[in-house]
């Protein structure tokens, strides 16, 4: 199991080097968005309008953190279930994003879109929310404050721990890993 350090924004070369099962430490800015923000982003793209931030080469983090204590950068900030974003992810990749971070397998055309747009889907460990919070060094509001925990935030992270689960070559850790350890 290789450990790789990557810095955002990502290039195609970096993405191509990431394989399902790789242990990754991410540094640089990542953008949080979940259901409501995705709905709005796709509406903007449909109208041919610009997104509220430059998405080129960037990663979207599916997260809804707990409240921030005074003096801290963020509250606990683990991933949420990615499957709910299946129908949005291909559009976001098409718009120039290089991938996403969440938890659980993504389907419904996502694997194909990762291949087509050279993107990567990484899993953060669900419930490792306090540990992940420690890797966030800066937390800025980008858009749609009225969405509360669902607003788009720019998180600057240092060595954010993630695992490549679905890569641009068709690799899928959820399927390969389980098959390997199944004993029936």
């Amino acid at each position, binding site marked *: *199991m290789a450990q790789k350090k990557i810095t955002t924004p990502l290039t195609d070369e970096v993405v191509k080097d990431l394989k399902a*099962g790789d*242990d990754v430490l991410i540094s640089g800015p990542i953008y949080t968005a979940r259901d409501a923000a995705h709905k709005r982003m796709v509406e903007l793209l449909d109208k041919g309008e610009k997104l509220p931030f430059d998405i080129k080469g960037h990663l979207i983090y599916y*997260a*809804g*953190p*707990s*409240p*921030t*204590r005074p003096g*801290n950068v963020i*509250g*606990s*900030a*683990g991933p*949420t*279930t990615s*499957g709910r974003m299946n129908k949005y992810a291909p559009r976001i990749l098409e718009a120039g994003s290089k991938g996403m971070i969440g*938890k*659980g*397998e993504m389907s419904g055309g996502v694997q194909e879109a990762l291949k087509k747009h050279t993107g990567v889907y990484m*899993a953060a*460990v*669900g*419930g*490792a*929310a*306090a*540990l992940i*919070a*420690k890797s966030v060094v800066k937390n800025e509001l980008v858009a749609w404050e009225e969405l*509360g*925990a669902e607003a788009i935030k720019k998180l600057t992270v240092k060595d954010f*721990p993630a*695992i490549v*689960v679905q890569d641009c070559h068709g690799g899928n*850790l*959820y399927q*390969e*890993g*389980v*098959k*390997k*350890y*199944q*004993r*029936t």
Partner: protein
Amino acid sequence: MREISSKDITKAVKDLCVDANYNLGEDVQDALRKAYEKEESPVSKATLKQIIDNFEIAKQGEFPICQDTGFGVFFVEMGDQVIIKGNNLFDAINEGVRQGYTDGYLRKSILADPIERKNTGDNTPAVIHLDVVKGDKLKIIIAPKGGGSENMSEVKMMKPADGVEGVKEFVIDKVKRSGSNPCPPIVVGVGIGGTFEKCAEMAKRALLRTIGSKHSNPFYAKLEEELLEKVNKLGIGAQGFGGTQTALAVFVETYPCHIASFPAAVNINCHAARHKEVIL
């Protein structure tokens, strides 16, 4: 009769909300450490390491174990010699949740209406199960429940002819279909018997058992062991990355049953298997 003031109940509940969300039970901690030792898959082992580091950080009291600090689920055992002074019991508990989730910087995840989906802003109301027992004590158990694992639960009205084999099949299939969603390694609660709602409640109550404990009935103790072994053969591993440590425990609870019925229920808990209790 013994009087307990509703203020003391509120205070105790407030503390329980915070304690449960920052301090993982010792039994769960030990079980996760053992799973780390036993795990054969390098990816799942590295994941378990993160899970262990995470609950250690949470103990320091700044960051809750998980950002999903859950629905406040309570099991209350009230002694028949207890009188509550001040507010009624349910109001006192809800006030404790309100204070605990606000002052403890816990996420508010409860929506006032399932269709309209507007947040109540203070994580109330709680779900409260009340039992009356002998004595002059009041026991309050909190089990905050996250959405990811709760969504992977099911009640099945099986046929009496399905027997214990039917239950095994149902449980294994449910865990298999849940895959990575409930944040494995999981704890599996199984209810068998009773009515539709009693069965679901037992499956949830089963999650309160201490990891490592055995069912008092040898038949069910054996069933728990067999189910755990079968679940771990599914290969799901930590977070569904593939591995040998899918579940920390399987707990079964049973209740008498109607001649025509055979309900079974599965309620899954994630590795953030949170519950704490207090006796007033």
